[in-house]
């Protein structure tokens, strides 16, 4: 499963050194204490770590990294463990470095509209702390109650509002990073740019391969004056999908634009009864925000666009309570899908919006072919799909079938001009899929970038970027007679 690190165990000398460096409570080696760290939210991949470090100071992190560096021992950094691609999965013979104790907001500057945070601060806590100043932190991944800002940066987390407000990369102004060699790098700060290369962009989404993020400065935005939420029902999935492009082409950039298909709507209704139309083939949930004077005009235009797209009914939330009710249906969709089958596998490909209808139809055909149901609930405005493949791991062969189906969906996303991951990351989960998205030259360049920051290849090894060897094997399996998968799809 993991490739670059041969199974090995941590040298006893290193464990003794770590014991000397850290207070007793900051070093876990007992099996029962290690178990919670065996996986992240991609729970079908597990490995119990040999050692977990829970440092409390920057100097302790630096000392851990230096000690591991000297002995050539890999290090995997971990936040809250809510990642969906196995980015925090322990590696054989490696140390798991938890940043959970770094939970301080070091500075909240309402005038410059920034917050300086330790990596273990939870996403939602930032917005809560900023609220008294009328400010908030925009990226809102679905795990925002639990996930940490350090993990958000490592994964370049998104959320339901990134259509208008961007991903983590658009909302981070500064980083402090410890390299594997123990050097502290300070990049950016409270200004809008820094000198030299844009390392903020490079580190955001680097999945813990380049350095350990020890401090983050984020920008805070003013809370919008007013918000409107509309829920539109459509008689076909294709009509709902086509309306997404129509809205954006109409000059409206919604704060959020979500699509749910019938299976997702029905599951959600069974679970929370938010008042979604159960008979609709698909619904669009659309949030607009801005100043009140503008919003009235924009809402009227949006209603026209929804009707022109074939919406059979439109609900408009007129109060904060109604807004919450409409969002509750969407927010419950994942747990609700969890009630449809013992297990589900959540995909994360992104495609150009104008191909939504054809790609969703193809997924529907495969769903019948594989005999596995799929619920679709996703960020339609971004073209970011989250097909949930329902399966039962207790039935022999179903997990493998679900994984094969998922891999096919990702290849389809690439063939449609998209990407294998919009916001969940590659981790260990999508290493093979990376081979369908990038050629050898790009992958080799990624490996050289990693070497520039981590010459020993010790930070989160074997994640995010597949080896060329792995892709050569994958290619041999997937390209038959010089033909790429899905020759019927135009490639660009």
């Amino acid at each position, binding site marked *: 499963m993991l490739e670059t690190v041969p199974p090995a165990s941590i040298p006893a000398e290193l464990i003794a050194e770590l014991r000397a460096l850290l207070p007793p409570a900051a070093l876990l080696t007992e099996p029962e204490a290690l178990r919670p760290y065996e996986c992240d939210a991609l729970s079908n991949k597990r490995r119990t770590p040999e050692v977990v470090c829970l440092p409390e100071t920057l100097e302790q992190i630096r000392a851990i990294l230096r000690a591991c560096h000297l002995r050539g021992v890999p290090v995997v950094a971990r936040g809250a463990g809510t990642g969906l691609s196995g980015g925090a999965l322990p590696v054989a013979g490696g140390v798991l470095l938890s940043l959970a104790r770094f939970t301080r907001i070091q500075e909240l500057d309402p005038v410059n509209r920034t917050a300086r945070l330790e990596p273990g601060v939870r996403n939602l806590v930032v917005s809560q702390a900023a609220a008294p100043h009328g400010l908030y932190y925009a990226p809102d991944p679905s795990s925002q109650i639990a996930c940490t800002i350090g993990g958000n940066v490592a994964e370049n987390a998104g959320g339901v509002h990134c259509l208008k407000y961007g991903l983590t990369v658009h909302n981070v102004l500064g980083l402090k990073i410890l390299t594997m060699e123990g050097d502290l790098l300070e990049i950016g700060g409270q200004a809008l*740019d820094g000198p030299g290369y844009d390392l903020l*962009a490079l580190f955001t989404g680097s999945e813990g391969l380049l350095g350990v993020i020890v401090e983050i400065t984020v920008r805070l935005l003013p809370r919008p004056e007013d918000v409107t939420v509309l829920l539109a029902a459509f008689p076909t999935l294709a009509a709902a999908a086509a309306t997404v492009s129509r809205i954006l082409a109409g000059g409206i950039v919604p704060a959020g634009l979500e699509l749910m298909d019938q299976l997702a709507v029905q599951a959600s209704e069974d679970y929370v009864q938010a008042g979604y139309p159960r008979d609709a083939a698909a619904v669009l949930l659309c949030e607009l925000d801005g100043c*009140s004077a503008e919003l009235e005009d924009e809402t009227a235009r949006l209603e026209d666009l929804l009707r022109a797209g074939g919406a059979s009914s439109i609900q408009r939330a007129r109060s904060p309570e109604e807004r919450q009710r409409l969002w509750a249906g969407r927010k419950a969709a994942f747990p609700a899908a969890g009630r449809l089958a013992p297990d589900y596998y959540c995909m994360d490909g992104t495609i150009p919006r104008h191909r939504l209808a054809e790609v969703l139809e193809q997924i529907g055909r495969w769903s019948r072919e594989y005999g596995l149901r799929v619920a679709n609930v996703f960020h339609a405005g971004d073209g970011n799909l989250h097909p949930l493949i329902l399966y039962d791991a207790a039935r022999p062969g179903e997990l493998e079938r679900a994984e094969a189906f998922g891999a096919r969906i990702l290849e389809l996303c690439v063939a449609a001009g998209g*990407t294998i991951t919009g916001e969940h990351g590659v981790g260990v989960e999508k290493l093979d899929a990376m081979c369908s998205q990038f050629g050898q030259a*790009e992958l080799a360049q990624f490996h050289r970038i990693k070497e520039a920051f981590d010459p020993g290849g010790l930070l989160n090894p074997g994640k995010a970027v597949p080896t060329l060897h792995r892709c050569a094997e994958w290619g041999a399996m997937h390209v038959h007679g010089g033909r790429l998968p899905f020759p019927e799809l135009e490639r*660009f």
Partner: protein
Amino acid sequence: MTADLSRSLAERIRAAAREHKALRIEGSGSKRFYGRTPCGEPLEVSGHRGIVRYQPQELILTVRSGTPLAEVEAALAEHGQMLPFEPPYFGPGATIGGTVACGLSGPRRPYSGALRDFILGVSCINGRGEILRFGGEVVKNVAGFDAARLMAGALGTLGVLLEVTFKVLPRPACDLTLAFEMDAAKAIETLNRWAARPLPISAGSHHGGRLYLRLSGSEAGLAKARRELGGEALGPAADYWRSLREQTLDFFQDERPLWRLSLPPATPPLGLGHDADWYLDWGGAQRWFKSDLPAKRIQKRAADAGGHASCFRGGDRDAHVFHPLPAALLARHRRLKQAFDPAGILNPGRLYPEM
């Protein structure tokens, strides 16, 4: 006019890498003044041009690097769209490649985002002569390291850009510029107070005792904001913001070196000399300063305030023109340069003398 020169450009770079011959990447030359003195044989990229794909309903545009910026903005305007970072031209021939390589953004930057924020993907040639594609044509994409945004502002030192994919946005229905009489300290305080409120601000500057504020949005939204903020409405103000962006205002007509300071926006006026004259843009986050003072003194002042300073125009272009990097960071910059361009042939020394 379109032409795809990627193969011949890659061939030139492979040959230069074999012979360890430096190449100076050239578009129209509009920003030749920027960065350190270019050296090496010219590598002409302005012939590699044309809009490759523009899908207005997708809000996405892919364009070859040699394409004139003016051509791109005209194509977008036809569909009521724009490059939201309001890039400066500094010359009529400015190309997309040069715009991205310099990574500069105009007055809208603090309110809409920087050039790098709107890059979705690039294809480029690294120093080995390999054609590489990073990112893509979708707005959410976390596969692989973000080498696409890394090209923004790298001044061509990591790769020769071939194509860039941008996210574009609808152009706001109306613009309104208001002027207010006040000194710099008050202007900085005011601009930051307004920026913390949900107002439709799209630019904010200050010079010569006047604060200029641009609002962009619907007619109703602007009317409401105007009632609230007061101020004197400037007639058609597009010229003002263009002149600020293009540095054609009187302030910039001065032989002394032009310094750009990038600072936390609410930083109080920095002084520096008894008759120091500052032009504030980006709501206080970008400040222009004409001065013969030693670089070290200006850079120290900027660093003490939590920002950085670069000598934007004039002065000694063989010296450091960008803010010096601390040793650990410089070491990683050099390794990164090496990772993309092991022979050190792409625009060597243009960004920092060591790279």
